[in-house]
């Protein structure tokens, strides 16, 4: 009898343990929602200490982003931010929580989307307050009501008068509401290796180098010269991609159909010729090891295309022995103007920190002193037209990575000409898949037609609502 009771008990605990493990999350969720639903969407001042168990006063600012660029900006330039550890900080009595998910394989957006879709049911302290978006997929969020118009946060148009117009155009929804702000402008330049320029072109003066890369024909000719001296013109074929894809005549997707622009086909033609001639050594993806090799003298790469953030954030400037560390890069306009990326700060619908978000946005994207400080310390190009034009003339804003060259005038000119009107919500997927498919053509594993068919196939898989034929 004793044995039997023991047996029943044992099996009961086993089953109970199993059931409770399965049921627990479901049972908890509604309870917390009930407690906090009442104050969803309220102003940041509302005290929400009632349902928190953490040892602060219950104010939490949740920030979703894909790298630590924005975190560094806030840490270094936002007055009153104190770092606690890598993923937390405080501003006054508000705890700032950083949720950093890398963008690889779309992980950032997947995570963000899942969380945004659950935003309405999440506890106040778990709701996203700020998330960052990039130009490639900004439109996905701009036209949805997951983003709050900045006017709702109390930021007036007059505050934003100094910003570059294009940074606002791209974040304006179809009904005319501005949904996000950026502290940076992302016009791109051609960043060249001074050592290689001296060796091959005889001069590393930006004006002289510009003559050798003034248009795509001279660019190709220079590539030939570079090859003769053992340099790869760009690190990978994808480096020049943005320059072509930003100068297209139409969107990637028109009337639900994928359209490959002629200018992008020009990139394919040029890249294939350069790969076949051995002028570009790698067809690897950007951000990979083969791409990064050129940041160091041994990589023997002549140039990269990129905006200010690439230079200050990605080119291994902190690492001893890199070209950037020694100030060995130069900047010139290159064959065509273009932009790349750019990070916008968006306020999530459902935030309970509206006041704080507005202040972060104002300080980082409109406060001239802070913005000039960003230029001086981080070699970024900031979204403040008068300040930038002023700084362009001053030597104190010269970039160390450029060996003392001040490229701001070039960026100013580029920012004036930035045109993001051909952006579509599908850009990221299209750009990525196109580059991946064309790699096969460049490597000689497929004919151009097969590679294009592969691209169309991949797009329809990614976006089932689109047609490719």
């Amino acid at each position, binding site marked *: 009898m004793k044995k*039997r009771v023991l*047996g029943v008990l044992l*099996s009961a605990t*086993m*089953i109970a343990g*199993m059931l409770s493990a*399965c049921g627990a999350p479901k049972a908890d969720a509604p309870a917390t929602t009930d407690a906090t639903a009442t104050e969803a969407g309220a102003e940041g001042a509302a005290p929400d200490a009632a349902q928190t168990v953490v040892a602060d006063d219950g104010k939490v600012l949740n920030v979703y982003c894909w790298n630590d660029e924005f975190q560094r900006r806030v840490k270094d330039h936002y007055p009153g931010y104190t770092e606690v550890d890598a993923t937390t900080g405080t501003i006054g009595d508000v705890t700032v929580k950083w949720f950093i998910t890398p963008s690889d*394989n*779309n992980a950032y957006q997947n995570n963000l*989307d899942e969380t*945004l*879709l659950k935003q309405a049911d999440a506890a106040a302290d778990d709701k996203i307050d700020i998330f960052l978006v990039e130009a490639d997929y900004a439109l*996905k*969020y701009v036209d*949805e009501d*997951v983003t709050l118009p900045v006017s709702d946060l109390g930021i007036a148009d007059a505050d934003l008068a100094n910003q570059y117009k294009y940074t606002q155009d791209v974040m304006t929804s179809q009904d005319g509401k501005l949904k996000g702000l950026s502290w940076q402008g992302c016009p791109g330049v051609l960043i060249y290796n001074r050592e290689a320029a001296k060796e091959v072109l005889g001069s590393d003066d930006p004006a002289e180098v510009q003559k050798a890369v003034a248009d795509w024909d001279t660019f190709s000719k220079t590539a030939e010269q570079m090859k003769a001296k053992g340099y790869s013109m760009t690190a990978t074929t994808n480096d020049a991609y943005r320059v072509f894809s930003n100068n297209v005549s139409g969107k990637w997707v028109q009337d639900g159909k994928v359209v490959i622009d002629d200018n992008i086909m020009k990139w394919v033609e040029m890249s294939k010729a350069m790969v076949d001639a051995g002028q570009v*050594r*790698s*067809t*690897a*993806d950007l951000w*990979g*090891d*083969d791409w990064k*090799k050129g940041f160091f003298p041994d990589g023997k790469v002549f140039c990269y295309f990129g905006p200010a953030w690439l230079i200050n954030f990605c080119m291994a400037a902190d690492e001893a022995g890199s070209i950037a560390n020694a100030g060995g890069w130069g900047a010139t306009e290159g064959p065509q103007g273009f932009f790349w990326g750019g990070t916008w700060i968006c306020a999530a619908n459902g935030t309970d920190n509206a006041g704080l978000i507005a202040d972060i946005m104002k300080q980082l994207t409109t406060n001239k002193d802070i913005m000039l400080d960003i230029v001086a310390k981080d070699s970024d190009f900031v979204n403040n037209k008068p300040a930038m034009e002023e700084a362009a003339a001053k030597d104190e804003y010269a970039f160390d990575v450029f060996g003392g060259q001040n490229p701001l005038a070039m960026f100013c000119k580029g920012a004036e000409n930035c045109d993001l009107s051909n952006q579509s*919500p599908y850009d990221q997927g299209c750009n990525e898949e196109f580059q*991946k498919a064309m*790699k*096969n053509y460049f*490597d000689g*594993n*497929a004919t151009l037609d*097969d*590679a294009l068919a*592969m691209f169309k*196939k*991949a797009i329809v*898989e*990614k*976006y*089932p*609502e689109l047609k490719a034929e």
Partner: protein
Amino acid sequence: MKKKSKVVSYNKWGYIFLIPFVVIYLLFQMIPLVSTIYNSFFENYRSGLKQIGPNFVGIENYITIITNGDLPTYLKNTLIMWIMGFVPQIVLSLLLGAWFTDPSLRLKAQGFFKTIIYLPNLIMASAFAMLFFTLFSISGPINSMMVQAEIFKEAYDFMSHVWSVRSLVAFMNCLMWFGNTTILLMAGMLGIDPALFEAAQVDGATATQIFYKITLPLLKPILIYVMITSLIGGLQMFDVPQILTNGTGDPMRSSMTLIMYLNKHLYSKNYGLGGALSVFMFIITGILSLLVFKFTASEEKN
């Protein structure tokens, strides 16, 4: 009467102890299986932040998958890479198993070697693939060693040639699983009555004859088991090629497996097409397993 009830009540414990399995099976196997089949009849995906569907579309998803002609390609890729990895794996395992179980060889430090051959399986497949990706990249150590030793004239791009990528995947799978197979086969070999070996030796059989005429035929049940589990595992090949090719299955998707293709549909949370594809895979796996079973079992009769 009293005695009889006692027997029955002991039997009851059998059922009670089966409950955890049945519950877990229902929760994690049966429900997903049924819901996959259910989902395959719907148009159900997400575009950006917008949810499309679920709308009932009948067998349209199945028609899409049959007509776009991708399924046979990816099935072929999967099987090629599986066979390329499995053949050396089973040969190696049989050899090692035979050596380890042969008492006349008196191998020293058996435990040590058995542990060593199993070790690759302990590394996470994705970490393993990442390691190989770095090792074999253009600027990676393998290329620089080969160039320095003047075996290659210039760096060879392993990742952009069909057969080098497939071979790498096969090699990794083989390396990861041969230890596991060896241990399974060894268990089978140790189960064979030693008297049979002794009898064969007394009759003057050579080691080769013993292996082919005694070990192999008696090992057949275990071999079938190894083959079927490996086939199913092979059809579900995903992590190694996914990480090695960064999800592209390049060059020209020649190393894209069925599950990688399924994963492509999950980008847009396309449960309809994904479900239909899974049903096809279920059927393919079933047919292939039956074939392997029938083929090996009928041989036994002869």
